[in-house]
Structures are given as C-alpha cells and as structure tokens.
C-alpha cells in the first residue's frame, strides 16, 4: 500500500488543517508537491536512506509535509510527542537524529523550526520531485515510542509491512473513499494517526488534522464522516450531550448531531478500554462506534466494523494476525508482518519480556476468543494502569517511590477518572503524619515523569491490616478491597491531599 501510495500523485482529496483560528484547506496534490520540495531539501542536505530525523511539534501542515517528505526520501522519522520530549542535543544524540524539527523555542545546533519549513522552498521549486521510493516489507520507516517500565519511553522501529497490513485491513473493513473526511486530533507523533493521511493519499478521501484544542470546534466546521478518538474523548462528549439535552429539552440524537456534525458515518476508538455504556450510547443515537484492540508493539490486532461487530468485544482478529491465549489467559499476538522483533531503544531485558524469539508479542492483557473469533479483553495480567489517553503507567515503581517515606506503610494506586492517578496510603502512624505524606507526594511527583503524576493521596482512616481485610496473609495490599473501602474518596477530586 505504501509503495503504491509513493508511486502515484494524488489527484483528489483535501487536507483540512484546523486550529482554533479556523480551518485551512490544502488539496492533497499540493501537499504532495510540497513534500517533494521538502524531500529535495532533505536530499540537498545529504539526507537519505539510513538517516533519521525527529519531529517534535503539535499537529500542523508542516508536520504532515515533512513526514511525507521523509517517507518519499526513505529517511526514517522519529515522532516525538510534545510534553513528553524536549528538543535538545541530548535527545538527538540518544535517538541518532541528523536533524530535529520542532515548534518549541530552541536554538540548539541541528534543531530547526518546523513552522518555517515551508517558507524557504522558493530555491527548490525547480528541483526534481523525488523518484518513487520503494520499500521492502521489513524496512523500518519510523520509530514509535511507548511507555517503558522505568517511565523512559521505549523506541520501536515500525516496518512498512506492518503499516501495509494494517492499512489494507482497515480499508477492507471500512472502505474509506471520496466523500469521507477522517478527523485526526491525537498527536501525529503516534504513527496510527498518520495512517489516516496515508489512507487519504491512497484512497482519495479528505482528512482533517487538527490540534487537540480545536477538536470540538473542528467537528462542526469540517463535518467529518469519521472521528478517530480515545475512549476519554467519547466519554466526555457523551457526558456533554446528556447534560445539554437535559438542559435544553432537545432530543439526545439532535444534540449529538449538533456536536459531531451531520455527516458521521462511524466513530473509531481504541488504545484503552472503552466504557460499554458509552459505546451503547453512541450506537443508540445512530453514531456507530467501533472499538478495537492493539498495542504499539502489534499495531491493530482486532477491530469491530460494520460487517462484524459484537458488543463487549474488540472485534475479530485482522487478517495476517494471530491471537494465542496462553494457559494463564494472557494474549499473545503473532503477525505475518510484525511491527518489529525487538525494541530499538529500551532498558536491558525489556525486549525479551515482550517479544518472543519469533517476534510473537506477549501483550500482558488477559482475554479470550469466542467461538466466532471475536476477541474479548478482560484486563491486565500485570500491574499496569492504562490511562484513558491510551498511555500505560506501571504502578509498582510509583508505589515504591511513595513508600520510601517513613510516614507511609503501604500504598496502592488507582485511576478513577481518565488520566487522574490517585494513591490510597496506609499511614505508618496514628494519627497519620499528613505533612510528611504531603512532602513525599511532592517528592515523588518531582522524581517521576509526566503520566506518572499523582494528583491526590487519600489517607486511609486506619492502617491496612489482615484483620480489617485490606492486607493478604502475605501482607500484600488487597487492591479490590481497598478500592471498595475508599471508593468515594478515590472518586471525588475534592478529597485527600492534593499535589502541590
């Protein structure tokens, strides 16, 4: 699919770039032309196959063009999420970047401003468009990053074969084509968000790329037919629709149409478990929503779609993928075209924990296949919390850091809402030394990174014990029982000690 995309010039379809200030429309043919000029610029600077550039910025036209230019030049990209990474020489060194393009203020050598990418193309207008690049299935086109056990993102090279097989399967399921407009507001640093640009170029539909700030405004401006979102997005939208309908007395479907526009064909969700009630809500309103399943390491594994949809499942397994459930109920994924067989950047042992010798991925998720081949996910086999934004947080490291305080005997971490982490702490003294616990919360938040941020600590009103049922006989915290006991405090953002 990618080779076919690279072999032809798009003759239809439009890229809509939405920011709060409004939407700009750029024909895909023009996007293609610009990417050819930028590719010529990369080539003039000696970049080609085997080189790698970083892109660290909010969604923009320049992001799209530079990514395509790199793809056409066989220059690898590293999609770096703003907030998670800072544009520094150290970042360039760590990931072997020849150049780093960013929209953040930075004057370090080798770091270029993404915003001016298209300003200086005049000298290149006579440059030849690059000859169509061709890729072998096992060639890597981009590095994608995934949360690591230490909080340092792991880097994983994504092969063209894995991109092709996912996009072909998606096209078979959803038949995107002229008339469609796919809305993308999640960061383009996530490879799957760039899929929809590639799909537009290949299949001649429109695609809207917007900043996340403009996501809801863009819905009414561009009237997309498909919205790509994480469960948290759709849960927020549902809550908004319900409340607005209550307030105005309007029909739910009417309010939903008002929010999403009047052309929705379907809604796409994945990356984290979706609330079944939210899925049912949109389906009832005539906005079909299809949940799927996949990891960075596997790409899309299963997906519900119009021709094969089963409530509660994440759909049937895609062609070219095989799901194996082991004796412990853990899902393993084997692929005809694996994303890769190991991480390119990780801590020692990380690759071996996830990838089998033949590239089979141990997902760490529990699940089963029903007799008709629909995959059901039951939860995590290890101690990982998947936030609503799809990012994973390993709780053990955070809990251990908190427990470094002598004022804290035990603690367990929960995620009651979207991306909010809340710890329930068993105090080491009675009464609890709340000042020391608060100081430890501050210290832990300083020591750990972004998604590991603990918003609040709920101090248990009595220490966890075997007698009160909150510790096992091996003195381990009983997570379910602790959650049940402190459910109200965990769920109420006003309760507990707040992070400074």
């Amino acid at each position: 699919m990618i080779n076919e995309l690279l072999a032809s010039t798009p003759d239809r379809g439009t890229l809509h770039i939405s920011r709060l200030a409004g939407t700009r429309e750029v024909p895909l043919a023009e996007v293609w032309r610009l990417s050819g000029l930028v590719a010529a610029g990369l080539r003039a600077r000696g970049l080609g196959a085997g080189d790698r550039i970083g892109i660290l910025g909010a969604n923009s036209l320049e992001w799209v063009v530079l990514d395509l230019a790199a793809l056409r030049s066989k220059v690898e990209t590293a999609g770096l999420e703003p907030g998670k990474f800072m544009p520094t020489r150290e970042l360039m060194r760590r990931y072997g970047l020849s150049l780093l393009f960013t929209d953040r203020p930075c004057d370090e050598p080798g770091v270029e401003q993404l915003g001016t990418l298209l300003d200086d193309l005049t000298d290149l207008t006579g440059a030849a468009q690059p000859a169509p690049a061709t890729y072998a299935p096992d060639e890597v086109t981009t590095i994608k990053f995934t949360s690591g056990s230490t909080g340092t993102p792991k880097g994983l090279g994504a092969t063209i074969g894995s991109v092709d097989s996912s996009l072909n399967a998606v096209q078979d399921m959803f038949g995107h084509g002229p008339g469609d407009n796919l809305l993308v507001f999640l960061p383009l640093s996530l490879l799957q968000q760039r899929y929809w640009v590639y799909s537009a170029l290949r299949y001649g539909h429109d695609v809207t790329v917007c900043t996340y700030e403009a996501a809801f405004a863009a819905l009414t401006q561009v009237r997309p037919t498909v919205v790509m979102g994480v469960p948290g997005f759709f849960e927020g939208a549902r809550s908004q629709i319900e409340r607005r309908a209550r307030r105005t007395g309007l029909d739910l479907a009417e309010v939903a149409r008002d929010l999403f526009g009047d052309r929705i064909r379907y809604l796409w969700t994945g990356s984290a478990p979706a609330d079944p009630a939210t899925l049912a809500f949109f389906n009832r309103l005539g906005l079909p929503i299809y949940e799927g399943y996949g990891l960075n390491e596997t790409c899309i594994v299963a997906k519900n779609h119009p021709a094969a949809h089963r409530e509660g499942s994440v759909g049937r397994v895609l062609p070219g993928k095989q799901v194996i459930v082991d004796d412990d109920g853990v899902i393993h994924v084997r692929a005809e075209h694996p994303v890769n067989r190991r991480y390119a950047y990780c801590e020692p042992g990380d690759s071996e924990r996830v990838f089998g010798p033949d590239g089979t991925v141990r997902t760490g998720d529990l699940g089963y296949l029903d007799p008709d081949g629909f995959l059901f996910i039951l939860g995590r086999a290890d101690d990982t919390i998947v936030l609503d934004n799809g990012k994973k947080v390993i709780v053990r490291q955070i809990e251990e850091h908190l427990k470094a305080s002598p004022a804290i005997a035990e603690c367990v971490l929960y995620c009651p809402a979207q991306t909010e982490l809340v710890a329930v702490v068993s105090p080491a003294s009675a009464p609890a030394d709340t000042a020391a616990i608060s100081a430890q919360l501050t210290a832990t938040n300083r020591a750990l990174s972004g998604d590991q941020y603990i918003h609040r600590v709920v101090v248990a009103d009595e220490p966890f014990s075997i007698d009160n049922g909150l510790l096992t006989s091996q003195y381990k915290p009983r997570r379910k029982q602790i959650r049940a006991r402190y459910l109200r405090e965990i769920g109420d953002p006003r309760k507990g000690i707040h992070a400074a």
Partner: protein
Amino acid sequence: MAKPCAAGGVPADIEAAARENLAAVLTFDVAPADLASDVDLTGTYGLTSLNKVLFLTSLCRDTGVDIARLTEDDLAGMHTLRDCVDILSPHLPAGT
C-alpha cells in the same frame, strides 16, 4: 439594556455559563454555584485537557463568543474559572 455584572465588571451571564459548563464536564456531581473561581482546574477538579477543550468550546457556543478569536495559547493560559471568564469576556458579542 446592559446585562447585570458580577464582581470585576464581568457580565453575570458569562460567569454563570462558565460555571454551568464546567460542572457539566467534571467527573463528579457538583452544583455550579459551589465551584471556586480561583482554584486550579486540573489540580483541584481533575479537569483533563480534552474536557477543558470541551468545556471551552461549549462555553463559547453558549455565550456567542467566536472560538476562532482564541488561540491555543489562550487555552493554555486558562488555569482557573476566573481565567476563563477573563479571557473570554473581551470577545463577547456587542450588546452582551
């Protein structure tokens, strides 16, 4: 006739609309009147970035503010309910 103003010269309607729309996106039940004006929306109320966008989009709509007059930086600068009201107020349609 001019609409009644809350403290600080902010039209009462936008203050009320802001409270109502904020309460609508929070993940717990709270009466709009009970929301504090000067607390951090993320730290205290657990407002996620996407729900903040949803809140502001619907607030603009309810108050007639053209969201295109705001920038991504304006949104980043809205940490409290008061910030939101103060940043939106100059953009209220004439006669509001």
